[in-house]
């Protein structure tokens, strides 16, 4: 399976931090600043959302980001311009829904989208509405152009399904920390530890997302055995607050940078913990 060196390298350190923002939220120019702030804060990989009108896997925070971005004129073509305009060195992963990938370009199927993404240096994709069963054509196109295809593993995924996904995944596996949709929560799900232990036999890096909000959550997730932490809604919340309060872009970017720093430091702290105690850390982080 073709693998993108960039993602492998990004996960080679102690604990990777993978923030998500919707491209173009709330405007093209502001969003460029915000994504660049993530890199300054210590992001190892950035998941960049290309908004789809029917985001069925997203909670209200990211649904609203999608609306802001679409109203700001974001389209797949603009998204590629956005990627081209971005001044960041960390690998970028495009998170979007299958219909946008499928419809892009003149040829039927996902190939034109993947070809374009590859030409701009994107490293891979996460497609929340594309389970392993339907992923064949996209996997093929990713192999052709040397991009990674990240799959989500849910708390309900086990047995043959898990094997089928892990046969196709590359880059990293997105471990969905809890059932449901995206959105910041006040605790770390105890489903995470069980999910991570099901994945132990595979070498691919394991990044945990869904509901993670603080450096302390990030620490607990990494201490439980994750190789990386994915955070979206808690960062999108900062963008939304800045937008609503009409905060200067530089100020919101600074808040994003410091939040990213907090989450990255949390992840690193988790990686530094004594492995003996790592199994118990999750329970300690539950709210009291």
């Amino acid at each position: 399976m073709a693998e993108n060196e960039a993602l492998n390298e990004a996960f080679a350190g102690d604990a990777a931090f993978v923030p998500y923002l919707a491209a173009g939220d709330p405007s093209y120019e502001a969003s460029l600043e915000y994504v660049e702030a993530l890199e300054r804060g210590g992001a190892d990989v950035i998941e960049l959302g290309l908004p789809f009108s029917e985001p069925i896997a997203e909670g209200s925070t990211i649904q609203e980001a999608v609306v802001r971005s679409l109203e700001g004129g974001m389209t797949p073509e603009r998204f590629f311009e956005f990627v081209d305009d971005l001044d960041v060195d960390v690998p970028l992963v495009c998170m979007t829904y299958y219909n946008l990938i499928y419809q892009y370009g003149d040829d039927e199927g996902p190939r034109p989208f993947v070809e374009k993404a590859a030409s701009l240096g994107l490293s891979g994709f996460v497609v929340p509405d594309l389970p392993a069963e339907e992923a064949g054509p996209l996997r093929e196109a990713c192999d052709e152009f040397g991009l990674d295809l990240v799959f989500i593993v849910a708390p309900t995924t086990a047995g043959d399904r898990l094997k089928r996904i892990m046969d196709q995944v590359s880059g990293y596996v997105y471990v969905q920390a809890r059932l449901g949709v995206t959105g910041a929560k006040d605790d770390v799900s105890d489903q995470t530890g069980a999910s991570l232990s099901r994945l132990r036999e595979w070498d691919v890096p394991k990044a945990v997302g869904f509901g993670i909000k603080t450096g302390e959550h990030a620490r607990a997730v990494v201490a439980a055995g994750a190789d990386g932490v994915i955070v979206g809604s808690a960062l999108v919340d900062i963008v939304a607050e800045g937008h609503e309060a009409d905060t200067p872009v530089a100020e919101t970017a600074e808040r994003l940078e410091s939040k990213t720093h907090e989450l990255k430091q949390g992840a690193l702290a988790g990686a530094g913990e004594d492995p003996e105690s790592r199994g118990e850390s999750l329970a300690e982080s539950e709210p009291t």
Partner: protein
Amino acid sequence: MTATDVKFGEYGGQYVPEALMPAIEELTDAYERYVLENEDGFMDEFRQRLRDFGGRPLPLQRADHLSERYDTEVYLKREDLLHGGAHKLNNALGQVLLAKYMGKERIIAETGAGQHGTATAMAAAHLGLPCEIYMGERDINRQRPNVFRMKLNGSEVNPVTTGRGTLKEAISETMRDWATNVEDTHYVIGSIVGPAPFPAMVRDFHAVISEEAREQCKEQTGGLPDTVVACAGGGSNTMGAFANFVEDADTELVAVEAGGSSLDVDEAAGVAPNSASLSTGDEGVLHGARTKLLQDGDGQILESHSISSGLDYAGVGPELAHLVDEGRVRAANVDDDAALAAFHRLSRLEGIIPALETAHAFGWMEENPDELGDVTIVNVSGRGDKDLESVIEETEKRDVEGAVDVGEVFR
């Protein structure tokens, strides 16, 4: 389930978040065992409940005045007489019963016009399961009586405020609930849409419509119909009315979509002022299936429109999309005005007040009387009580041929 029932040609499939896939596998297994193989007598119980609770079988009635008007034999399959006033109970009862056999403890459903929501609420009350219905805010205001009915049957009604607040958003929101509560909850999807096995399973629960109609037609006319006409939004009454005629090559099957106010798309506004995805849509992926969709050139889903909220949807069942591509089903459409005129016409001529959805099928007959064969069956998918308020309002805005001025008695 055979491979052809996961995919219908190129259409169908299972494009859903991974969190839902185990539940979909579990549902596929239950569908195969209980529905296709009648394990534990599931289908026997379903049929008995459809009879005792639902009131089946339902008549195939000769429409004397329409037959005279079009100089042909017109028969009405009276799904409006099913308990609840629409065909929707066939599927809702089947799925709620299946959820019970599967040991699920909670029912959720989306609804557009409220007909599927009310049917699900009735079935859940009948079978003793708690139920929550997601309904777009705009539809809640358009379909107030159905909201009351759901509440009376003990269901929660959750308003969906995202997007334009119609069926598309309600389906997305119900999928989010399902992804959160998948372990104990069954999602009773209301049409032949969504990931496999839903399109095939919902069709099978509604196939009783054409199973009865086919036998009744043979008994009453001595043969099979030349034409079967049904309205099509997502397409559940359509496939129910067509399923047992698909192999009858001499029977023409006409799916009548909502032409809305125009077939033209306003891409800048992201609006298709119609719900005619079979007639005008392109292939794409939405709500778990590859099918024909109203979408812009980028693949963003357009806001649909119809005077009838039950047809107001940007997609259509994958099996119907396939049958249209194959040339087996003919896709037609009539606009809001024609549907409204047909609503008044059927009410006056036959003493049957049809749902606005159903009125589209009659609108097509009125516009195409020469296309009707010697024997035509129209599926009267539902009754129009729920639509009275919006019909009065919409009629006042237009010059509808032969419409009564309902408002005058109040003045």
